[in-house]
């Protein structure tokens, strides 16, 4: 009974840790000005002013914005402006943030038929959950009652 309680407690602890860590990955909403900058950059691109669009996207990133869409659009604008290296880097970064976005995966030349890719954060959360559950298993097994062997 004690063992079962410990197991349940440890599993709950593992879940709590993972949920707590997930809170650390929650995106933050940026001021409206940033969304407007993003929209303006898109307009520049649509008008064929690729270099201007690249500058605006890069401004956002320089402010610390980490957004897959911004990276993707930067990649497209850089591609149109003829900066293949910048485009490649931007697509790769976008793919790191949103590997299951088909548009981004295609741009990053990632093969779509593979196992769905995980973000870095998802891998980190999985690692935390695994360690917590493994710890639970270790603690539970250590408290497993010893069976007395019958003497013949």
């Amino acid at each position, binding site marked *: 009974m004690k063992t079962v309680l410990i197991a349940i407690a*440890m599993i709950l*602890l*593992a879940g709590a*840790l993972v949920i*707590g*860590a997930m809170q*650390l*990955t*929650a*995106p*933050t*909403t*940026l001021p*409206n000005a*940033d*969304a407007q900058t*993003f*929209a303006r950059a*898109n*307009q520049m*691109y*649509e*008008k*064929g002013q690729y270099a201007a669009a690249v500058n605006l996207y890069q401004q*956002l990133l320089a402010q*610390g*914005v*980490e*957004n*897959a*869409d*911004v990276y*993707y*659009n930067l990649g*497209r604008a850089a*591609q*149109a402006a003829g900066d293949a290296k910048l485009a490649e880097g931007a697509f790769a970064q976008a793919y790191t*943030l949103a590997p299951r976005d088909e*548009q981004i995966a295609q*741009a990053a030349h990632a093969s779509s038929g593979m196992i769905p890719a995980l973000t*870095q*954060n998802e891998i*980190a*959360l999985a690692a*935390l959950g695994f*360690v*917590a559950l*493994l*710890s*639970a298993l*270790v*603690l539970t097994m*250590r408290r497993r009652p010893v069976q007395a062997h019958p003497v013949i």
Partner: protein
Amino acid sequence: MNKFYRIALLAVALLGVSGLWFTSKAHAQSPYGLQAQIDADTITTDDTVTLTLTLTSPDGRAPKLNLPALDGFNVINTQTASQYSIVNGQTSTSMAYAYELQPTQTGDLVIPALHLNMNGQDLTTEALTVHVTQGNGTPTKKSNLQTNPFGGSAFGSPFGGSAFNSVFGNDPFSDPFFQDAFGRTASLDIQAVTNKQSVYVGEPVEYTVRVAGDGTLLGEPVYEKPQFKGFWAHETDSQRGGSGAEITTLLFPTQAGNLTIDPATIRTDGGFFSEPIEKQTESLAIQVKPLPQGAPAEFNGAVGKFELTATPDKTATRVGEPIVVKYQIRGTGNFDTLPDPKWQNDTNWRAYDAKAKNESSVQFGQLSGIKTFERTLIPTKEGNFTIPAVRYAYFDPSDAQYHTLEAQAIQVNVAPGDPAQTQNVAPATNASAPNNAPVVTNAPALKIAPAQLTSAPKPLSAQPLFWAMFLVPLGLVGIDLAFGLRKRYLDNNAAERRASRAYQSAMKKVRRIKRDDTTNMQIARIVLSYLEDRMNRSLLGVPHSSIAQLLMAHQVSSDAAVQVTELLRNGEVTEFGKLRLVSAQDMVTNATEVLTRVEEEWAE
């Protein structure tokens, strides 16, 4: 009889074997052959006769044949083709030289015997006679020269008969490909030709690379196309036949001047029995003429031959309800880079240009296709309006003239709309910005700007708090393991455990003791119990003097030992004599002091 029969049989066998040997020897001694054939022996002066000379060679070598002047005939066309074959391990190459001869007179015209010396062997054809009668102006037979001299595509030419003939319409004997191919024992050859040497900017040039192997090549030859500097290149499907291939690229010059097409390269890796081979074509020069002056205002660079149509999805609508007009340009030209029409803007509409769809294919050396533009027009006012005609100009190289197409104007009736329903009408697909600004028509779609932009936090791996979370389960396991280890250690060392806990246990008891008549006795018991735990032995009945000695044996000072014995004696006096030599408080104080002193001085 039997003996005679056996000798006769042996003689016949020997004869047979020797006959076979001589036959094969004779055959081996005549590896070359030359034959002459005509496709008709009676023609009119309006007809032509095809003379085909077939030269067979075992090693692929073939000289350049020069047909001597023939009395009564003019050579009006020539062709050549080759056939490579392996029969019973013996390779041979047949070259067919076909000459289209036109008679210049009537009568029995004789094509004399032709002589050729091949590696010291004299080869001779038979003389052939052609009976020529007077014609009436209408040919009675067709020339066979447009077909394969060997008779059909089964000939085995690497490119097949028709493709071969269509490209080699010029004199094959001056063709460097054949001089090169048969001037040595090459097993892989490559040749590049263009169908035009002088074109206008934007006019297609068919660039064909023909590769011929001898069928014994190991592996797939690797083709490296030229860079086509100054051209827009449109690849077409390569054709294969026999052991050769034909790779055609449509080239559209993008600049005027004397352009050069760099050499194309073909290489094979070689194999166990063969060396790697690398062959290059020669550079080809193309003269590109600039487009003539006088281009119409609508001209945007389109070169070719086109038609333009405009089709609206409806001609009656309401304010805010879009009309989609499909403009299609079809014809031949470079559809890969075909410019858009110059659209006209109108204040009565908000116009959205959708991405252009392009469908094209190569047909007969031309890039044919359809380019479709779907314009979404959203009326902003009610009334009867005209979507203006769209004009599209192009340059046609075939007549060296500019032409202007016009898609008809479209009359549209626009009824009043419901403002509530039409305020935010936008084109359904692919349409982008309103047409008062240049529109990117072929750029990939972007991610739409959201109402609120979000930013991902630092990755978890860069957040210390995340790593601290790992310490919780790992710490619990670590603590549990440490306690387990300690427990096991203490279980295995009970005496030590008892000794290590003796002082704390005794002090705890002393602190909690009640002050009454039995205090001194209890203190003595606690101290005695402490000493038993420390020494891991029973002291029941042991005289105090012996206890003192035991203490001193553990480096406890004599003063401390005396204090201990005195304390024990006070306890016994109280227990057995019902007397208290010292007060309970003093007894507690003394016990605390003695226990601490002994614990400090104790040594194993």
